[in-house]
């Protein structure tokens, strides 16, 4: 490294640097051609009105009117954006908690562990891409079932519990959020396959001797969960948090993204859809940056 600062690089190092660049050259070319260029172009496009003609397309600058239109004229966009963000935060938190909990259980020794792991990982394969979007259509059938059940005067424990808590009058909105999450536990379980695997890989790197030391010092299992396990996997929390947020943005059933794609494909309004996409992207990145900064301050690095 010092040699590099002096501006002189030895022959071998230079050769290795060139080989390294050769290895990653596909990425650099792809990144510049299919990432940087389109990014800049789409940013520019968001300030323009794009007219597609035969054989070419023209861009006419029109200032920030696309952004104005998106927020002040379009009836759905700002509402969808706000709702999307609320959902993203609530669901990402729920997914983190669920994945951590499940991975703690799956890390224990018991019969049929491999089988259970295989099942929990199944959603990664089966509910990706288009299938996830179609899965939500099943809600129609679920509703039919619900109405049938209601008419049969079946009383479920959870429904009664919900009613009691609702009438309590304190923190009703918080309860509603919790109820919604419980009702959608299936979605959460589907979305947390990769996170469980990542947590598991983190849990397996914790040396057993640490737990032994903790138990000799008089820690109960509950205490060693918070004093040993939690700090040791705290860096994994950061990885998973970023992954969850990004995954949420790319889901096929994300309403904001659907809106953007519709604007582009159906209305052929390329400028407006770019503006919408950029707003969403910038907001997500800002949120991601702030939250990861907050988490990373609490992350404990063992090595």
């Amino acid at each position: 490294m010092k040699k590099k600062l002096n501006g002189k690089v030895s022959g071998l190092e230079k050769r290795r640097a060139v080989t390294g660049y050769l290895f990653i050259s596909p990425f650099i070319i792809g990144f510049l051609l299919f990432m940087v260029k389109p990014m800049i172009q789409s940013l520019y496009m968001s300030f323009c009105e794009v007219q597609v003609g035969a054989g070419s397309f023209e861009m006419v600058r029109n200032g920030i009117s696309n952004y104005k239109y998106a927020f002040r004229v379009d009836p759905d966009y700002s509402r969808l954006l706000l709702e999307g963000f609320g959902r993203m935060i609530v669901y990402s938190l729920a997914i983190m908690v669920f994945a951590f909990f499940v991975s703690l259980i799956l890390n224990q020794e018991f019969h049929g562990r491999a089988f259970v792991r295989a099942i929990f990982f199944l959603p990664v394969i089966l509910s990706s891409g288009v299938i996830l979007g179609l899965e939500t259509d099943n809600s129609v059938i679920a509703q039919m079932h619900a109405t049938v059940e209601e008419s049969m005067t079946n009383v479920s424990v959870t429904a009664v519990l919900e009613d009691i808590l609702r009438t309590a009058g304190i923190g009703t909105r918080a309860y509603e959020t919790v109820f919604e999450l419980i009702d959608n536990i299936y979605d959460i379980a589907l979305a947390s396959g990769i996170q469980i695997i990542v947590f598991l890989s983190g849990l397996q790197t914790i040396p057993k001797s640490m737990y032994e030391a903790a138990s000799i010092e008089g820690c109960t299992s509950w205490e060693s969960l918070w004093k040993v396990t939690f700090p040791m996997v705290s860096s994994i929390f950061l990885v998973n948090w970023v992954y969850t947020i990004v995954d949420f943005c790319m889901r096929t059933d994300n309403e904001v993204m659907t809106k953007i794609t519709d604007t582009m494909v159906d209305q052929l309004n390329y400028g407006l859809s770019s503006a919408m996409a950029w707003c969403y992207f910038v907001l997500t990145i800002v949120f991601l940056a702030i939250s990861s900064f907050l988490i990373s301050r609490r992350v404990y690095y063992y090595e």
Partner: protein
Amino acid sequence: MSNTAVMSAPASTGKTKSKDRPKMSALRKKKIAVNAFISFVRFILLFGLCFMIIQPILNKISVSFMTEGDLYDPVVINIPAHFTTANYQLSAKLMSYKLAFKNSMITSLTIGLLQVAVCTLVGYGFARYDFPLKKFWFGCVLLMIIIPPQIMSTSLYLHFKFFDFCGLAKLITGNTINLRGSVLPYYLLSAGCMGLKNGLYIYLIRQFFRNIPKELEEAAYVDGAGTLKTFIIIMLPDAKPILVSCFLFSFVWQWTDGFYSRMFLGNLKLVSTSLSSIADDLSTYIASQTGVQTTVSVAYSNCILSTGTLMIILPLIFLYLFAQKGFVESLSSTGIKM
């Protein structure tokens, strides 16, 4: 619990076993009882969660064998009264399953191989070589993971619609090439590491290569192997597990992907794209059969949709059954860190 185990261990060593047993049994019974209780709670919990994940698939299977009449029959819930495979025949017809299956197979295989090959090169470069601006480029990889592809979709769409490599095409033919409608755009994207989740593969492969000891590489150099020879003969065989699992992921995600397929693979008939339009196809098909414009009932179109979904995920389930280890184990052994 381990406290009691530690305390009781020295006590048992002094005495003979037969005398010790009655004293020990109280503690041991308590321990066994607690363990049994924990196992029981864990079993209930896991059983419930597993059932929740699998239930929709079972439900789909049972629905897919029902006739239309069974769907409305309130008595029929899980086991069809009139067993039929007509739904499968109709779904296969609507999706043109054979053609779509073949196309999807070819596309997923070639795309998966291409992506893994390119990502391996890049990952190896990042893991094993020092070069100026390395941190910057790796930051770009991370950025690539974070940025949703939808943001550039507008621009890429137009980019490929009016494709022109450095103004070369315009020079020769006087016009830009319309790559939209062909499969080339996605192969170009994949060759440039910009396919579906390619940043993730680069990251994983790099993580794996970093864990291979440096001595192995140095020994190869000392023995006179060149850069490429070292890479192919020494490094690649070692990295087989992670390459296999990256390929599996790439295959599976490509198989079900709707976004990239619709944008960059043109009008190629794939299982994923044909599934997403199966409901519309059904109504047009029924209209053409009967000659009357009718709306298909929600239950029936859902039934056909379930059948179609099953037909699509069946190959994946088989793949998962045989290559489960490739999916789970190697991913958890890479030791993902940040």
